[in-house]
């Protein structure tokens, strides 16, 4: 909402400047968005009088003028056809920046005559679009008067009102708060009733649910036309378009008192009555904006004998609007239910100054006063004779008194405010204070408890005065504030970054089609109002987002991406359905190297996953890989190049592998891409221990020894299945078994492969003798043969 300083001063006796007003508003809780100050732009310009204007000796169309200015008499060259002796106009001194032409004035001869300044047109000053001649002002204006004052321009303050304070949507409400804050004295805002002659002959009916109270009055014999210049200027300054005196008066009431009204041409009202009721199914109405609305049974309509003539509290109807020919006007001052008015605005997609105010709740105590005030204005501007006020229904009961322990101000805010000062603030804001009982005014229905009163006192006293008091010491939780899970999320990020992955943060939603490819897309996880159609479904996996990100980077010329994200995925809409996932993706496009070809990048990814699992404190996991024609990992993986890591037969901790080419194609991404997804919640949390002491470490003084074995196995046998029995062949002695070569080809029978394994033996009690080593080797060979039919390669 906007207002001007002079408007404020109608209600507030003050000498405050615009800056002081803006600051006081801000500190009282009114958020000032913007101050448009035309005076600042026109500060250099002032009123001047042309004393003499003679033809320029060297130019037909120029005149040399002697001008009385704020700087004394000046010789100024002017090309305007209306530059003449006796003219009162606007003078710009040398050095002034002329906003409309974008130039800064310099003392420069014009065809041989130096011009000591400039006389300006309306366009050059940006006050209007007139460029035909210099400004012509009333002769009564004195030389030296600032241009902004000559044009009646003043600063316009634009501010934002929080939904709890509809009273601030009237200038008087702002004046009241500023007066309480010590910026001036509030002028008496009370309204004198205007006696009427004879009854208002139009009957008023209300349906209490839609409109609790409806006051109206007929004024006969008015003359409607353009409103006077002062009113037009006032409305235009705050961005309202002047229409006619009657309509302008209702707008004035809206902005001055937050009291929206409506005026009807009484001659156009049918049936001798007007009613506020709920709409009927199919009921239609052409509103003042020229559009036709369907007023269903949820909407409050104003109706006469002919049907709906207005949308109550929102907008009047075309059929009964006032015009130049209106002689009898019916003025409506009603209270419309805030929730219903808000809903009507949403349902019809229609807002207005009135709707905005009613939806927030206008002063229930100002329904009849507003009508009286409007009557006074109509009589003053349009003449006419008022009938008596007629009221149907009852205004909602005024707010009830409640108890307020003044000590609560100190307890809740920390501010030391004397009781008398507390009472003074509340009284200035319109509250009634009787001892410990406080009654809010009818325009402050947001206040219904003692905490609200503390806010009133604190904000008027000033939040600047709040003491900054340290929080009391609190015992910190032993071992840090993070839970194991929270610490794991944090460590996972840094572990992945340390291994060369860049952390992405992507949307929690994605297009349904992609969600479906990754096992999601459930109806109940689809947003009913997505911001875009490709962001409409809660994600079942982070991978599609990472794939898309890698593909987008590749299209921009950066194909070698390694990305990860730590974030939620959603199996359903319940809290337990939200998982915390670490997902990582590599698009392996490593640059060629002079040092030769790198190993299969899938194993680099596996190494990263294993390192992460170790960092997270995961126990040993089984790796499960499918055979030919599909495996246990999910369908979005390459069937032969993907696997699962499991804890027991059921708990899947992670899946990793190469993404299925068909999936990448569907996501419009160039492959290959390698990825993993790890469910942080599936990693068991370590048992809480009473002490941080680590288990004792026993270091053997005996040298470990290593022996190499090469086995022939079926080519389909996973190496891991060969290693496992070897490790188990003697758990006490065998410390490690590691595959270091896999070979197929010459020297190895068709359909078989040779797997070379280095076994590390760690003696514990004594050095092993040759026969003991031989015996251990035999056990290893036997275990390998028993498990997977492996034969020692000779």
């Amino acid at each position: 909402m906007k207002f001007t300083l002079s408007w404020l001063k109608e209600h507030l006796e003050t000498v405050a400047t615009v800056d002081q007003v803006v600051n006081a508003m801000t500190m009282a809780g009114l958020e000032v968005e913007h101050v448009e100050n035309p005076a600042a732009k026109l500060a250099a310009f002032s009123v001047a009088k042309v004393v003499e204007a003679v033809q320029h000796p060297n130019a037909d169309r120029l005149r040399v003028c002697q001008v009385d200015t704020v700087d004394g008499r000046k010789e100024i060259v002017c090309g305007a056809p209306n530059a003449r002796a006796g003219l009162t106009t606007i003078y710009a001194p040398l050095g002034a920046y002329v906003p409309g032409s974008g130039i800064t004035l310099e003392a420069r001869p014009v065809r041989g005559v130096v011009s000591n300044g400039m006389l300006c047109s309306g366009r050059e000053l940006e006050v209007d679009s007139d460029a035909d001649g210099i400004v012509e002002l009333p002769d009564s204006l004195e030389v030296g008067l600032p241009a902004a004052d000559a044009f009646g321009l003043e600063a316009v303050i634009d501010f934002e009102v929080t939904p709890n304070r509809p009273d601030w949507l009237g200038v008087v409400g702002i004046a009241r708060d500023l007066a309480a804050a010590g910026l001036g004295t509030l002028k008496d805002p009370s309204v004198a009733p205007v006696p009427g002659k004879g009854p208002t002959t139009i009957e008023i009916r209300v349906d209490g649910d839609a409109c609790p109270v409806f006051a109206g009055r007929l004024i006969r014999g008015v003359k409607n036309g353009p409103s006077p210049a002062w009113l037009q200027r006032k409305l235009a300054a705050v961005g309202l378009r002047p229409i006619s005196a009657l309509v302008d008066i209702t707008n004035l009431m809206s902005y001055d008192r937050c009291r929206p009204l409506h005026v009807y041409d009484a001659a156009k009202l049918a049936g001798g009555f007007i009613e506020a009721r709920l709409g009927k199914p199919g009921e239609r109405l052409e509103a003042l904006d020229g559009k036709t609305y369907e007023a269903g049974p949820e909407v409050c309509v104003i109706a006469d004998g002919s049907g709906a003539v207005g949308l109550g509290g929102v907008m009047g109807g075309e059929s009964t609007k006032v015009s130049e020919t209106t002689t009898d006007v019916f003025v409506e001052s009603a209270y419309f239910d805030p929730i219903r008015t808000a809903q009507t605005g949403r349902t019809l997609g229609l807002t207005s100054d009135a709707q905005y105010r009613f939806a927030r709740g206008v002063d229930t105590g100002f329904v009849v006063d507003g009508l009286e005030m409007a009557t006074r204005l109509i009589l003053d501007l349009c003449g006419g004779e008022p009938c008596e006020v007629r009221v149907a229904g009852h205004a909602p009961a005024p707010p009830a008194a409640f108890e307020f322990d003044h000590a609560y101000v100190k307890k809740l805010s920390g501010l030391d405010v004397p009781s008398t000062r507390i009472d003074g603030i509340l009284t200035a804001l319109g509250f009634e204070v009787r001892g410990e009982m406080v009654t809010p005014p009818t325009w402050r229905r947001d206040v219904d408890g003692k905490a609200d009163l503390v806010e009133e006192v604190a904000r008027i006293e000033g939040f600047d005065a709040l003491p900054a008091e340290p929080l009391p010491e609190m015992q910190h939780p032993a071992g840090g504030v993070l839970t194991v899970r929270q610490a794991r999320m944090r460590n996972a990020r840094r572990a992945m970054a340390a291994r060369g992955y860049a952390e992405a943060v992507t949307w929690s939603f994605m297009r349904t089609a992609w969600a479906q490819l990754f096992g999601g897309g459930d109806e109940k996880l689809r947003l009913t109002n997505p911001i875009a159609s490709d962001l409409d479904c809660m994600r079942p996996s982070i991978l599609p987002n990472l794939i898309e990100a890698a593909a987008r980077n590749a299209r921009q010329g950066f194909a070698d991406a390694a990305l990860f994200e730590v974030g939620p995925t959603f199996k359903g809409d319940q809290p337990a359905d939200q998982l915390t996932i670490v997902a990582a993706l590599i698009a392996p496009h490593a640059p060629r190297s002079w040092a030769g070809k790198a190993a299969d990048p899938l194993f680099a990814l596996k190494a990263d996953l294993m390192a992460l699992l170790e960092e997270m404190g995961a126990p040993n996991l089984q790796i499960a890989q499918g055979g030919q024609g599909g495996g246990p990992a999910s369908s979005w993986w390459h069937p032969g190049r993907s696997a699962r890591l499991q804890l027991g037969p059921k708990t899947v901790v992670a899946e990793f592998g190469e993404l299925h080419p068909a999936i990448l194609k569907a996501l419009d991404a160039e492959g290959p891409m390698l990825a993993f997804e790890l469910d942080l919640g599936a990693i068991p949390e370590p048992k809480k221990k009473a002490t941080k002491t680590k288990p004792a470490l026993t270091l053997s003084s005996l040298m470990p020894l290593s022996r190499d074995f090469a086995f022939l196995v079926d080519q389909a046998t996973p190496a891991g299945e060969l290693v496992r029995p070897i490790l188990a062949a003697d758990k006490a002695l065998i410390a490690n078994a590691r595959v270091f070569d896999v070979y197929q080809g010459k020297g190895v029978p068709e359909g078989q492969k040779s797997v070379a394994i280095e076994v590390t033996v760690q003696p514990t009690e004594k050095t092993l003798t040759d026969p003991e080593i031989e015996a251990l080797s035999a056990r290893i060979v036997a275990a390998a043969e028993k498990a997977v039919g492996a034969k020692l390669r000779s």
Partner: protein
Amino acid sequence: MTDLSKLEADLSASIAAAADVAALEAARIAALGKSGSVSELLKTLGAMSPDERRELGPLINGLRDRIAGAIAGRKAELEAAELDAKLAAERVDLTLPPAPARRGRVHPTMQVLDEMIAIFAEMGFGLAEGPDIEDDFHNFTALNFPPKHPAREMHDTFWLPEDDRGERKVLRTHTSPVQIRTMQRTNEKLPAWIANGQEPPIRVIVPGRTYRSDSDATHTPMFHQMEGLVIDKAIHMGHLKWTLETFISRFFETPLVETRFRPHHFPFTEPSAEMDVRCDRSGGDVKIGQGDDWMEIVGCGMVHPNVLRNCGLDPDVWQGFAFGFGIDRLGMLKYGMPDLRDMFASDVRWLEHYGFSAFAAPNPATGLS
């Protein structure tokens, strides 16, 4: 009698002339080997009279020691030369590039999150969490948003479809529902990571993803908030002011940050406030701590008595404050990122430029980043 001087001169010359270890070995055998010239001389000592031996013994032994020394010296020389030659042959071109390594990065929002956690942990705050998909009760009703109130409209809520009971879940519009989950125990079966009622005194922060249907340079449909909640018996607005002022000065790592508290309105706090920081916006970007402008940085207030009541806490016994920061926004201000949307665009160049090293974990010794 052999001319010892000549023999020594000949042997020394052949040792010095040995060009490699093999030639030196041949020279050693010729002198000190079983039948070497020096060995033969030594053998003659046994047949000498004591007087001859007394005269010639030291001369022959001296000769032997000098020749052995010369051989050892020449051997060391030859070995050093051999190593030099080997090392020279092992030369590589070190101007060649190593295999390129990717530069891993922590996302700036997550870095800022860690920074915030570090500061609040120091003040005794723990971490509480809640689900992204919330019910109407936790997101609105319990937080004192009256049904159908315009304040709900201001949140640009994302809705999920109606369930069998006619209820619609929402994507949480703020982290404030976790205030409710922290103060009030529900009978709903919840995973352990979700806050579910704790006895006051309470001191927690709540970071997380939040969602609003909005998109421009400073709004994205998903963003991160950090809520704070302190409940005790005598916590007042002065504590709130100290907490936020202390946080801001530590976060921006300068004592110069000037802040301003001004009244505002939130349904779930009373009194409500916003805190601004002094800044300079004249140059296009925002400079914190200088200039004549103010920028809103956090919404806050004393927890509304209705919210306490909704959580089963007696507002005449318990009181406290709550606040809510935009994590991404604080990051943009501190590290100079101009557009919020870039945070979620996963551009590797952007991540590399604005992201943080894995080793930049905030700690008291090296600062926040």
